[in-house]
């Protein structure tokens, strides 16, 4: 029982990272119509920059600045590389471009910071176990859950109540009309892409505190994030979060009984969802096809 | 244009109209059909009959529900209420594929073609579909010759022989629309639905299309239902006209009756000034 709880909680934490990644991916997918294969790269950028800056800024400073820098770099990448190819209606090209970026970022990370894993020091205040019996529930892990919840709620409020958010939602449902209404959709898409990358960076810093840093960490988190979006339903941000948590939890539970299947199970879940409910748990009808 | 010239057009059209086919039962019938989008009733309780062999126009101001009306017949949309009957069969819930197999074929307001392929290749897809061989992973010589002969035949009917090898996406707009009609024709339609066949065309292109539609009707024996904004064409070739306004049938009858109908003149023809 203790083992099951241990694995389930670990899975949930993993699911939180998937959810954060998926949230950013889904934002970019819906407004920019780009499958950002480099999303894992932005996660790595956020994490490693936080690692490098934490001796100067402390953990808290790095937690803020790392994701922000990932967002700014994302903004620059969008303006320099992705904007020129929006006009090509075939999504193949943005997929290949971000794919290339993913390779470059992983390789350069390895060159700059080395292939071996690095630890991100987390302040003792939040790193001690909350209870003796449930030693795996550390303060940091609760903190991760809290920050993620805050970020998701923050995003929800932003999309719901700010002018920028309303414009992003409008652009998602009908880009041409939004442009015709005088909204600068180039700026909007750039900002949105930056936001997405900021979420990836945040996932990176938080994950680094639990898992440590390795160059391929981003590219190994990106596939489950796809699955999170497919299960949750394309077009639904809440679905992406739900999907991420679900697959994390499922993987954790399966680890207890049949560890070898802990990765495969999330893809099996996806196949089942696709077969039974093609649009995903919370997806809009028709959007998926 | 004014109602007066419309009337003249109708008068000159009368002698040209093909003789009415003697159909015992309605070929296409819509019974109290409605289609709602949210609170908007795009098509509102429409009943409609069309006989086999007819050349019928559907007219109406923008937003009258003409294209929705076509979508309901062709199966792009299911009706919210009512029934669609074609050739004695209730097709209200049948698939697009089933309707095409029964002979209902349509074109679109915005030309739907295979832009990177040649005229020949565009029509080939239709011919192979019509012959029921389009799932075959190989093709024998005899079959290929038969297919090619049929394609050439269709290209000749629509007068595109000199452009057969041209890429459709690079043709003039008018020719692209003719290609779309030829592709529709290739699957052997019994009822051809043309959504604004002359939209965006120049004078000579329009003339070519009007002539084509008339020949399809008289020579190929295809029943034609078309949406059109140009009243010269409508009153020039249609044997019967259905007027839609705000989703409802405002009037229905031969051209002379429509152009004389005070309601139509008030609601529609007057507006076209």
């Amino acid at each position: 029982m203790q083992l099951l709880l241990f694995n389930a909680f670990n899975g949930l934490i993993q699911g939180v990272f998937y959810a954060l990644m998926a949230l950013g991916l889904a934002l970019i997918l819906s407004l920019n119509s780009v499958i950002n294969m480099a999303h894992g790269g932005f996660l790595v950028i956020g994490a490693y920059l936080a690692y490098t800056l934490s001796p100067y800024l402390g953990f808290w400073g790095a937690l803020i600045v790392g994701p922000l820098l990932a967002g700014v770099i994302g903004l620059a990448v969008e303006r320099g590389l992705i904007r020129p190819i929006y006009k090509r209606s075939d999504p193949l090209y943005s997929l290949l471009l971000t794919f290339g970026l993913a390779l470059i970022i992983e390789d350069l990370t390895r060159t700059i910071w080395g292939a071996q894993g690095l630890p991100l020091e987390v302040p003792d205040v939040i790193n001690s176990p909350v209870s003796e019996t449930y030693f795996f529930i550390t303060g940091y892990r609760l903190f991760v859950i809290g920050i993620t919840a805050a970020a998701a709620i923050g995003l929800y409020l932003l999309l719901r109540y700010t002018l920028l958010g309303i414009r992003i939602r409008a652009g998602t449902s009908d880009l041409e009309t939004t442009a015709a209404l005088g909204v600068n959709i180039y700026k909007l898409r750039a900002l949105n892409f930056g936001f997405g990358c900021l979420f990836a960076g945040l996932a990176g810093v938080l994950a680094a505190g639990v898992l440590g840093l390795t160059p391929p960490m981003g590219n190994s988190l990106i596939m489950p994030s796809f699955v999170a979006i497919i299960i949750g339903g394309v077009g639904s941000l809440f679905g992406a979060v739900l999907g991420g948590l679900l697959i994390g939890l499922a993987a954790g539970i399966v680890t207890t009984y049949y560890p070898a299947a802990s990765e495969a199970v999330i893809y099996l879940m996806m196949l089942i969802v696709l077969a039974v409910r093609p649009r995903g748990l919370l997806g809009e009808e028709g959007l998926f096809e | 244009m004014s109602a007066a010239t419309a009337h003249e057009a109708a008068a000159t059209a009368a002698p040209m109209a093909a003789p009415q086919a003697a159909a015992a039962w309605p070929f296409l019938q819509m019974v109290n059909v409605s289609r709602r989008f949210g609170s908007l009733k795009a098509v509102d309780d429409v009943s409609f009959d069309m006989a086999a062999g007819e050349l019928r126009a559907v007219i109406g101001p923008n937003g009258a529900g003409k294209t929705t009306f076509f979508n309901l017949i062709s199966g792009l949309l299911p009706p919210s209420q009512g029934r669609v009957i074609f050739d004695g069969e209730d097709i209200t819930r049948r698939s697009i594929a089933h309707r095409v197999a029964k002979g209902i074929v349509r074109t679109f307001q915005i030309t739907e073609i295979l832009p990177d392929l040649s005229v020949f290749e565009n029509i080939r897809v239709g011919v192979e579909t019509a012959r029921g061989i389009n799932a075959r992973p190989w093709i024998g010589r005899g079959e290929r010759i038969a297919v090619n002969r049929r394609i050439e035949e269709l290209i000749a009917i629509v007068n595109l022989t000199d452009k057969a090898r041209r890429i459709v996406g690079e043709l003039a707009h008018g020719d692209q629309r003719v290609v779309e009609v030829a592709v529709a024709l290739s699957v052997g339609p019994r009822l051809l639905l043309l959504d604004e066949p002359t939209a965006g065309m120049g004078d000579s292109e329009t003339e070519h299309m009007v002539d084509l539609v008339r020949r399809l009707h008289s020579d190929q024996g295809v029943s034609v239902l078309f949406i059109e904004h140009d009243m010269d064409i409508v009153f020039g070739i249609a044997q019967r006209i259905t007027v839609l306004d705000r989703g409802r049938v405002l009037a229905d009858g031969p051209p002379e009756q429509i152009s004389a109908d005070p309601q139509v003149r008030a609601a529609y023809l007057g507006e076209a000034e």
Partner: protein
Amino acid sequence: MTRAATIAAMWIALIALPWWLPLIGGYTALGSKVLIYAIATMGLNLVLGFTGGLSFGQAAYFGLGGYGAGMTLKYLVPSTPLAILIGTLVGGLAATILGPLVMRRRGIYFAMITIAIGQLFYFVIVRWNEVTGGEDGLAGFGRQDIHLGNVVIPLTDVNFYYLVLLCFTVAVAVMWTLLQSPLGHTWVAIRENRRRLQFLGVRPERYVWASFAIAGFITAFAGTLNALLFNFTSPQDLHWILSGDFVIMIVLGGMRSFFGPLIGVIIFVVAQDYLSSLTDNWMTFIGLIFVLIVLLFPRGVFGIFDRRAKIA
């Protein structure tokens, strides 16, 4: 040069490859690898370039073919032809079974789902260590000499190259026939305008399924040869990175052209071989190749000559 002459010249160059390739610093196995990847990418291009389905997980079927062949040799029967047959069936049937889940999707969703499905097989292979060798890959098998009646053909590097060339020729003939057939015409029509086809009474999904399944068989076929070439296969052969490499090879050569993928494969495989001997950061350069092709060269080598290959 006419088309026929070009193709004849190409085949003569391929037949003579074991003589000329070493002269310019290559080796026969590199020639085999190019042809194997050419089979895989030309197969994938049936979906990608001709049917318009963004299949981004094709390496899964390539790898399954490889594991199918390797495991046949290692555990079942020491026969090269049977290894090829069984491997092809394993990968091809996997694609056929999963086809219905992807056939209705379009554009980016088609891509996402095919990538994610590919990862399922990746993890099955990685975690099923006792049988597949896990992360370390499957070794301990070797291609067997071919027995034709009383004649025994030893599969040396050069003879194996000719086996691959024979397989390439067969695959090319099959794919060419398919693309000239009504089925092939329907695929291209789906790529061009799905709606037009629907309103001709065709249900596009079934044809997308056929395309995906056939591409799966052909890629798996190439995968079996790949395992036999190295007498080894690893999870990298199913990884999404390889799927991406396949796609960029196709784009590099020209995705609207039948032989485009072959050209892309030659350039990419040779560049990869060369870069990895030159620098540890070859992955960065491969990534740069991706970015540069997309930005500057989206129509590929063949696209330069073909007006019709526009980037819609």
